[in-house]
């Protein structure tokens, strides 16, 4: 089933790209070059074969681990992409750690005292944040904050890789990670809070209370687990979305992640790179979903039993 999905996606990616207008020959040779040269280039690149043949060539290459060389830059596609993947991973990890580390305790506090001061502030606050798109957040942050604080925000590749300088690395990724984290926090907080409140009404929580268990333990050991199902499901979707849609943040802040690469490759009609990225992203999303489905099963075995 999984393979079927991936297969379909590869077909889709391939055909989609090739349906698009945009001619790599034009890009490479420039417009106005002679048709003869174009034809020669086509033959060279294997673009003169019928589409389905091209597809099989591509798939065959992939299965053998060769993503090919970009038409445009001549570089191996893998080389181009491989630098970007760890960046995405790092941003995801940092932002999600931040998001969960804040959402879980705060949701617990709010669920303990619904409609209390903290709860109302957080509800209003998270609601407002929910309504601020990430690009606006970045632009406004840059406007009001970064200019003054000198946090690297613009300029070509302000990103510093982990190997070079880990402090610089964290610095350069801080703004985008925080923006992503806030977006995730808002969603996780609301869902967890509402599920926790529902769970706390259950009789087994009263039973746990009547055993003299502390509030804290009840919250973490008894209430959190049954309330996490929706949270984990959402996390899966959310993180998948970050992978696919994090491009705007990367683009704005010059972080050379997959999203950034995708945009520039589309602009250059660099088919192979685009295809490869689509493939990687799609596979990544599927893996993430599987991972979270797995987690959900651990947390709540009832699901599989049903």
């Amino acid at each position: 089933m999984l393979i079927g999905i991936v297969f379909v996606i590869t077909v889709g990616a391939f055909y989609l790209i090739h349906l698009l207008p945009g001619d790599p020959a034009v890009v490479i040779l420039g417009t106005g070059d002679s048709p003869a040269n174009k034809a020669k280039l086509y033959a060279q690149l294997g673009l003169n074969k019928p589409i389905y043949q091209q597809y099989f060539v591509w798939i065959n290459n992939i299965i053998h681990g060769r993503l090919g060389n970009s038409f445009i830059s001549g570089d191996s596609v893998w080389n181009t992409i491989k630098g970007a993947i760890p960046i995405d991973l790092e941003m995801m990890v940092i932002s999600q750690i931040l998001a969960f580390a804040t959402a879980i305790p705060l949701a617990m506090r709010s669920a303990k005292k619904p409609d209390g001061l903290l709860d109302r502030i957080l509800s209003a606050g998270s609601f407002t944040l929910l309504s601020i798109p990430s690009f606006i957040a970045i632009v406004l942050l840059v406007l009001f904050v970064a200019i003054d604080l000198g946090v690297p925000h613009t300029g070509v590749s302000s990103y510093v890789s982990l190997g070079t300088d880990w402090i610089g690395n964290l610095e350069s990724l801080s703004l985008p990670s925080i923006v992503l984290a806030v977006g995730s926090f808002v969603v996780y907080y609301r869902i967890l809070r509402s599920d926790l409140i529902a769970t706390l009404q259950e009789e087994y929580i009263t039973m746990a209370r009547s055993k003299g268990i502390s509030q804290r333990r009840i919250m973490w050991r008894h209430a959190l687990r049954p309330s996490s199902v929706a949270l984990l499901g959402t996390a899966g979707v959310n993180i998948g979305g970050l992978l696919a849609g994090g491009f705007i943040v990367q683009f704005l802040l010059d972080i050379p992640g997959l999203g950034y690469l995708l945009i520039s490759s589309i602009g250059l009609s660099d088919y192979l790179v685009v295809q490869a990225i689509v493939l990687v992203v799609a596979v990544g999303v599927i893996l993430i979903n599987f991972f979270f489905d797995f987690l959900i099963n651990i947390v709540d075995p009832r699901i599989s039993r049903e």
Partner: protein
Amino acid sequence: MSQSQQLLVVKDLATTFDTPLGPLPAVGGVSFDLNQNETLGIVGESGSGKTVLSRTIMGLQQRRNVTVTGSVLLNGFEVVGASEEEKRKIWGLEVAMIFQDPMTSLNPVMRIGKQIDEILRVRLGMDRKAAKARAIELLELVGIPSPQDRYSVFPGELSGGMRQRVVIATALAGSPKLLMADEPTTGLDVTIQAQILNLLEEIKARMEMSVILVTHDLGVVATRTSRVIVMYAGRIVEMGTTRDVFSHHRMPYTRALLEGSPKVSNPSHTRLKAIPGRPPNLLNLAQGCSFAPRCSFATDRCRQERPELESTGTPGHSFACWNPLPTTRGASA
């Protein structure tokens, strides 16, 4: 009986809810005692306040719209007005509660073994091995076959009767002196009901525990309790030894309750007498005796003045009625 021997002393306990429709006195002025090794039954229809009473005695009310007045002395510890932290000290170790629905009393995503030995590990500081061993012992005690294997199952994998046994095991883990059982068998099959009640009796004897059995089922009360409290509209209307209340009751409501429940001794096809009218609306309690509107013996005084509990003459047996049934004690009393 001297004070020190009494496990539980309840005095003028009243629980009022502050609802959007006005104050609701779910329990109004209840007083009784409980001794060691006693089984006390609290009977009443739905809405009589018996469940609220049981939770108030435990001190489980935590809603912000609840006011509790009076006193509940559990082994010398005053429950009313105590902070949650203080109450936690007695919960599980001195007093434990089991609830009506075993489906919802157990955490569905936690293995039953963990739920049973939690109190041992967290409150009594036992290490994992010892706690597990004790939990398995408890499982055996409540009659669960192959307890070692069952230790790691989830509640969903057990039948209703088994689940209730697990709930009982969980409650017993801390060796409480008082077990509050709120309709423990109502959700179960009739055949299982008897098993569970037998189990409770066994355990009570073995662990020298007192039990408060809250139920609407008179059949349960008749055979399993030594003393009974009859509740109506949040108050005690009759109380005494089970025998006294069943055979020598004075309050017409008690009679009506008894007549309304099926008895094996009745000839077949006996019609059960339903009590006419409906239970009172606690928000709008009328003056006088709450049962008066439905009572065939009600007098004017009944409708105007609320009767207090008075003794029948037999120690421990009291009732609240202006126009009680004539005593059925003959010269033998």
